[in-house]
């Protein structure tokens, strides 16, 4: 043992800058091989959805965008030319499945944004001000959570469908993600409210107050960044529920009507299965399964690496 070296390394550790929560979280996440694989899968799904949007914008002629093209006979089983076979109209099931990713990702992403936009500010304001404002907010989310989730989504989706809002017609997926977003902010609101109540009496908030920060600044610049990792964790897991909700809604005929989605494919498969046509069903199920599995595993890993409370245990 070289005494000088030990001393130096000791000095180094003393001078080392502290890592932020995010940097530390990413470092821990990198160590988990499985979580990184899952992250890659999720990125792939997002890239797919994004490239279909780009293709529609720039008029590229890539496969998934041309899902309506007839590539063969009706109900052709999987072969080397049509990897996942064809559906009743002779359209490629593979292209339809890929296109379905765009619908699902769009719905889940927009629904997340809507529910974060409602839930996070409401939770933070309720938790910070308490009193009457808080009572009203708690009343609001208690009311929503007393109605079965599926019933609530269905009620919103039925009513919002084909309505116009501020001169903008709510068709297909817009109604779907609004219905999901407007009904599922309860969980995140509750979480943020509880966390803000805990943080409210900490020193850093007191310090901000003594500087004379406005209440808006304290809530949005000091409190929210300190609890925001919870939002990320919550939504990485909630995303799965949104994807599944979209599938159920399109299955019940409340989703996108004239473009392929996974739910509509499963709905078609209801009749097809009895004729021995399994590929459409298997393709849609596999697409949903892989995305959900990746999200579930990655969400768990994210929670383990970002939540300091869990780390101590």
């Amino acid at each position: 043992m070289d005494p000088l070296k030990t001393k130096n390394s000791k000095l180094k550790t003393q001078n080392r800058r502290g890592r932020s929560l995010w940097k530390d979280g990413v470092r821990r996440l990198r160590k988990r091989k499985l979580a990184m694989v899952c992250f890659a899968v999720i990125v792939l799904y997002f890239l797919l959805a994004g490239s279909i949007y780009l293709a529609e914008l720039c008029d590229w002629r890539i496969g998934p965008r041309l899902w309506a093209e007839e590539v063969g006979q009706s109900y052709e089983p999987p072969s080397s030319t049509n990897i996942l076979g064809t559906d009743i109209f002779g359209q490629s099931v593979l292209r339809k499945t890929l296109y379905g990713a765009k619908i699902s990702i769009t719905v889940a992403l927009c629904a997340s944004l809507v529910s974060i936009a409602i839930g996070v500010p409401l939770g933070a304001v309720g938790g910070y001000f308490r009193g009457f404002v808080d009572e009203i907010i708690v009343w609001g989310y208690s009311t929503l959570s007393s109605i079965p989730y599926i019933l609530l989504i269905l009620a919103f989706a039925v009513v919002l469908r084909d309505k116009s809002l501020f001169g903008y017609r709510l068709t297909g997926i817009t109604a779907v993600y609004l219905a999901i977003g407007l009904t599922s902010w309860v969980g995140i609101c509750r979480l943020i409210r509880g966390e803000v109540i805990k943080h409210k009496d900490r020193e850093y908030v007191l310090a901000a107050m003594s500087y004379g920060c406005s209440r808006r600044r304290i809530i949005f610049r000091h409190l929210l960044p300190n609890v925001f990792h919870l939002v990320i964790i919550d939504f990485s897991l909630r995303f799965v529920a949104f994807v599944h909700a979209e599938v159920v809604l399109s299955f019940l005929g409340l989703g996108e009507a004239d473009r392929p989605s996974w739910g509509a494919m499963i709905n078609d498969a209801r009749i097809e299965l009895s004729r021995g046509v399994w590929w459409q069903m298997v393709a849609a199920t596999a697409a949903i399964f892989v995305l959900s599995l990746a999200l579930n595993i990655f969400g768990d890993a994210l929670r383990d690496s970002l939540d300091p409370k869990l780390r101590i245990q």
Partner: protein
Amino acid sequence: MYTIPIVFGVLLLTFVLFTIVGGDISIEIAGKDAAAETIEEIREEYGLNKPLFFSWDSQFINHFKSALAFDFGRARDREPVIDKIKRGLGPSLALTVPIFFGVVIISVSLSLIIAFVRGSVWDVSAVIICVAAMSIPYLSFILFGQYFLAYKWGLFPVFFSPDLTMAQNVALPVLIGIAAGLGGNVRFYRTVMLDEMQSDYVRTAFAKGLTTRRVLFKHVLKNAMIPIITRVVLAIPFLFLGSLLLERFFGIPGLGYMMVEAIGSRDYFVISAMTYISAILFVVFNLITDVCYCLADPRVCL
């Protein structure tokens, strides 16, 4: 604490959703080429020609009055909504009650055992299976179950038929419901049980020489009761709704099936009534949960 405000809130929500956002549906009911008088008659019958808010006879006040009297009017097919609900309640409960008990009993006992062997190969593989099961969409469980078990191998009837007994009719849907519900539940209860397993009283109980079964199912289970009760009792009101998708696939004439039909025909009266009733049930069971806490853990009452 919030019981009465919540009932008020639910009524307000259904009013805003179905009357204000939903809008005037008299033209939709009457059909495309209906005469102006027919539309006016329908508006009169449903009270749509009354003022929305500011009157003693307004739609807002009437909505509250009729809901508190459990009078939900008539559905699109002229049958009183309340009769429809009474008719569908039996089949729905026959389906969901066995699923409920099956899932709770199996997942609690499984999770106790898994928590006991924590860290082993069994534990890891159980968690992997749970996560995988949670990732499969519910619809796929139903479709593949129906296809293989009923259609292909002929073990169960494919569709509901009135000639068979209820038990024969719901056997397969119940099986599928339990299979689909296990993944998430086992995973949740496992976390609960793991917290308990690390307590001192468990070590003491083992040190006393009690059998594993006694420690797990008597000591640990009793102490883990609070989270179990919260999850279980609050799931009971949702039983009334039946399982929407299962009933749709197997043609079981329950409340879920009725809801799917109501969605298809945009029957706001049925959906609104179902929303209200399930919310009332939820509020009642919320109170029951609080009572159950006291029974399970006397410390809560102090």
